């Protein structure tokens, strides 16, 4: 006969659940809010700081504790520590407000840094500071999401910025050096490459030389094409990931 008196009850507040479905059974662990993410990243090492109660539940809100047979059947062990560890790392979690905010901030900042590093003002050949990019993106109603990698979103943002041009912006060109051995045999290849490489002043292409070399600026979008073209037939050397005027006029 369970004792059902106020002093025997444990009430959990501020619960954040971690759920894991295994063998058609649902297991839950009751954690504190804003902590699960840290534990998963390894920043929080103390499990007691994360768990509200050292037990595996079937249903936390009803107070149903998982019985040993189920644990044995689903996890192959009755050791609660091991089971909790597995649930913590594999289970689905609810993001709490602060964690979400933090992640969003992080993704946003990372994205802005990437965009700022990859784009320039075509007039001054200078970068835009991330804050400017942020303002421009807000103007365009572009907001980052947390479940996509920052780099992908940065590329989307660049596309949007370049197409709308609310600030004069272009993607910074890459500077590459291409060398093709035995150029006489592959005239059409050289022609293809030359198309990709925008001519820059002082660029030197010496068709009669072996190997044929060319230095110039390319659009970063074309880099992959260039690589596949030159595969096995020559080398591509990246001289500059982004050509930016770095001279400070003091």
């Amino acid at each position, binding site marked *: 006969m369970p004792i059902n008196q106020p002093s025997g009850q444990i009430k959990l*507040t*501020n*619960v*954040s659940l971690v759920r894991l479905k295994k063998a058609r059974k649902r297991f839950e662990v009751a954690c*504190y*809010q*804003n*902590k699960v993410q*840290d534990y998963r*990243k390894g*920043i*929080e090492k103390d499990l007691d*700081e*994360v768990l509200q109660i050292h037990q595996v539940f079937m249903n936390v809100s009803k107070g149903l504790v998982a019985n040993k047979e189920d644990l044995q059947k689903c996890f192959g062990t009755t050791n609660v520590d091991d089971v909790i560890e597995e649930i913590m790392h594999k289970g689905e979690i609810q993001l709490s407000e*602060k964690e979400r905010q*933090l992640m969003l*901030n*992080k*993704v*946003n*900042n*990372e*994205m*802005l*840094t990437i965009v*700022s590093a990859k784009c320039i*003002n075509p007039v*001054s050949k*200078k*970068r835009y*500071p*991330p804050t*400017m990019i942020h*303002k*421009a993106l807000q*103007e365009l109603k572009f907001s980052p999401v947390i479940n996509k990698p*920052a780099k992908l979103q940065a590329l989307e943002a660049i596309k949007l910025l370049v197409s709308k041009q*609310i*600030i*004069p912006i272009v993607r910074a060109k890459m500077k590459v*050096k291409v060398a093709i051995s035995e150029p006489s045999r592959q005239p059409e290849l050289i022609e293809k490459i030359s198309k990709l490489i925008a001519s*820059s*002043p*002082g*660029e*030197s292409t010496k068709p009669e030389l072996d190997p044929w*070399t060319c*230095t110039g600026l390319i659009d970063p979008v074309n880099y992959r094409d260039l*690589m596949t073209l030159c595969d096995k037939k020559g080398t*591509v*050397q*990246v*001289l500059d*990931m982004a050509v*930016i005027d*770095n*001279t*400070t*006029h*003091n």
Partner: protein
Amino acid sequence: MPRVESETYKRLQNDPSCIRNICIVAHVDHGKTSLSDSLLASNGIISQRLAGKIRFLDARPDEQLRGITMESSAISLYFRVLRKQEGSDEPLVSEHLVNLIDSPGHIDFSSEVSAASRLCDGAVVLVDVVEGVCSQTVTVLRQCWTEKLKPILVLNKIDRLITELQLTPQEAYIHLSKVIEQVNSVIGSFFANERQLDDLFWREQLEKNENAEYIEKDDSGIYFNPTDNNVIFASAIDGWGFNIGQLAKFYEQKLGAKRENLQKVLWGDFYMDPKTKKIINNKGLKGRSLKPLFTSLILENIWKIYQNIITSRDSEMVEKIAKTLNIKLLARDLRSKDDKQLLRTIMGQWLPVSTAVLLTVIEKLPSPLESQTDRLNTILVSESDTAAMDPRLLKAMKTCDKEGPVSAYVSKMLSIPREELPVESKRIASSDELMERSRKAREEALNAAKHAGMVENMAMMDLNDNSKNTSDLYKRAKDTVMTPEVGEQTKPKPSRNNDVFCVVSEPSSALDLEFEYEGEDDSDSQDNFGLDFVPTDIDPNDPLSSMFEYEEEDPLLESIKQISEDVNDEVDDIFDEKEECLVAFARIYSGTLRVGQEISVLGPKYDPKCPEEHIETAIITHLYLFMGKELVPLDVCPSGNIVGIRGLAGKVLKSGTLIEKGVQGVNLAGVNFHFTPIVRVAVEPANPVEMSKLVRGLKLLDQADPCVHTYVENTGEHILCTAGELHLERCLKDLTERFAGIEITHSEPAIPYRETFLSASDMNPPQNSQLGRGVHELLLSQYKITFRTFPLSGKVTDFLSQHQNSIKNILKTSTSSMDPVIESTGSSFLDKKSLLVAFEEVINQEEKSRELLSGFKVKLAGFGPSRVGCNILLSQDNLLGSLFEGTPAAFEYSDSIKNGFQLAVSEGPLANEPVQGMCVLVESVHKMSQDEIESIEDPRYQQHIVDLSGRLITSTRDAIHEAFLDWSPRIMWAIYSCDIQTSVDVLGKVYAVILQRHGKIISEEMKEGTPFFQIEAHVPVVEAFGLSEDIRKRTSGAAQPQLVFSGFECIDLDPFWVPTTEEELEELGDTADRENIARKHMNAIRRRKGLFIEEKVVENAEKQRTLKKN
């Protein structure tokens, strides 16, 4: 009429002997602008009643609101002296044109004072008698000294001695003499310094030449002495002031003593023997306690007036006083509840401050004619300049010859909205407009003053008073600031002529030296004034003409106002399209400037030795006479004057010299300003679309303000450097309202960091004990690549960073197609051979470097980041080829490794900041056999990779980072070298500020011959935000830092360090995040860049706020 036709100005401009160019300088809040108000009132530009309150020359609304001047402004005044000639009744009239420059007193705007002092011949130095000599007073006195300006001293705010400090006349006398002594001691110290230098110079000369003679300079003429009439006792706010000479005249009749004698005894320890009625000195005192003449004759009378009006109102007594002083008092004035006003009326008639100041200025300060002869040597920077100069020009400058070749100095460019510029003189309708504009200007100023007063008042008022309606507030505000109601259109005061015209002083006829305003000649003028003044005969270009219309309740005027408002709206529209004109603020030294004239403009870098450089020609499109906020167009302007020139925009950036075309000129612009801009902020438009407007605005601002510096940082931030926080505020306001016309946000600029590592004693054990520290094996596909990293010594790093340009150049020439765009910066490049030799020398200096970098010539595969930085990539056995020998690489994917290295050093592992001082050696590339591959247990290992060359780049980067972290990593922060000159008494406070901001004192030296210390310190850039403000505050302005960027310095702390030993744990706790500055900075950068930070979202899970709802 007190109104002065601009024709008069034009006439007077032609005679340099009657021109005085003066500037008013003082510490902040010592009453410069109030004083100039009184001077303006004497010319009828503003009403006498308003003088001291309206602060007419503070044309900017923010100046009015804050009550401080921010921009120097100029105004021309007309002044007439009547001198009684011996034996004739007809007084000799001598007219004068005084070009007055009101300068700001706040330390942030010191550059404005420098600019103003350049243009003037004399200075009026104000000192608040209560506060005495302050830091800025010393600065301006020094400025006068170095610029060889002749100063006169005004002891201002004497009324505060009476009303606030409640001194007795005797105490006040002692106090005043002390203040004069203070000022003189400051000047004396300048003289002593100069004497010391002279002495030093003489001794040097003596060593070379036995016969050199020491010339002792006389310092008697430089001090202030009331008996010399170069000290004025004044209260600008109450409108009175006098010098001893004036009072000597006054008492001449009363006492029947000779004026010359009185002049000598009125100041100093001279007493009147009550029995003999003779004047005696200290000796004759014989133990009696008599009061000095200055006290008994002058101060006591002033005190009496104050007592009878302010302290206890005694109408009878006042009337008696007025009678003795021959002052006309109207019954209305006596009845008026406004004590201050009555006081002003009496004192203003008895001892008008404008008369005292202008008279002293005219008597004591030199005209351009005299001063240019004296000051020319100071103005011309060096001897060689003088030699190169056209002798005609030199002569013309010395004599201020208006017929000679033109030379003028532009001290700054004023940016003036087009709406404020006078319209083309051809337009007839402009008369009304001008009138309207000047009225508006005045109203604006008044309203702003009222507003400021109201704000003040509101602050004082009980907060519960919110329910009161605004008109109520308004009245209260008026009561406190005592603003007369002239600003209000609806209530014209019937008796308004009193305040201006009661200046008629009867006793004047008895004095042989007298001042009269033009209008007093005409007895009818009082009737004319203010009733129906018809503006038809007014010179359309004279804004003063409108002076008397502004209180009229004229429906026509209202309609004009309506129209002009419409016009204003239009102007606003234009303004949106950036209608901003640059007007040069210039002093003509010789010759005559004409509209349409073509002149050569010499830039500040102009050198007479190479006359072709930094020279441009410009055509003068307009010339203006400065009248405070307003400009009056001129056609010609002769030498000795201060003038506004249009047509130089783009030709003169901040300051420059104008010389007649074809004449070999000289650079007059060699003035060195005392302050360089030190407060840096990044500015951005609130709306990103308006970027171009901001860029243009910054350019304009850069031109218009001599003490502003703007540039674009590598990160793309637009940096604005200003002299101080207050200056910054003004600049931002200027940008938003005038130059750019857009919303602007400002923030701290992004601060660069560097990453490095070093070998420390308390490092963790190496990751791989077999390979040793800093070695990392990269397993990828069938390759096993071994990277070894080690730190470079400081000397090597320094060498590399110094010779970046040389390396860049060598790279360019050796592999011709490597880097096609390199601009030659003009510095000398080392060629390959000498660079290598020099580099080897540096390496050989240290045992360790020699060992590590032996045979680098062959091994060297590249530098980084961007192929020129302070990191080295080496390779064993030509794996990556050699950069200098040009041997080809042995390893087929060498390019990928090189690129990986570039990536690794341009974005370090700590915070993605550039790395410096790292050497990476590719030790071996081993192609693994099948057996070896199978024996690898690393779970991350991948055998089959599609794009190996691409993958190798990132893997190399990661491998180098791993190896980097095996050592003890460090964050390097940017450092300012900070020079501070300070006096001994605040030395400790300067130290405290520096240390509080993690700075280091490098050296501290006593400056020879001065009571100053020169401190050199290193302060991190991060901590330097607000440093100057802090130092100034703590030292009450006695110390002023100069900041120069001086490279990077290591924070001597591993950002990953955590306490391990028991003591450390006990002392710092197990994370020690408060103690670890390096980590704090690393995390801050990471947060900014959105990188991973090892920080908990919530420290204690259980201490979170409990929410009912989950």
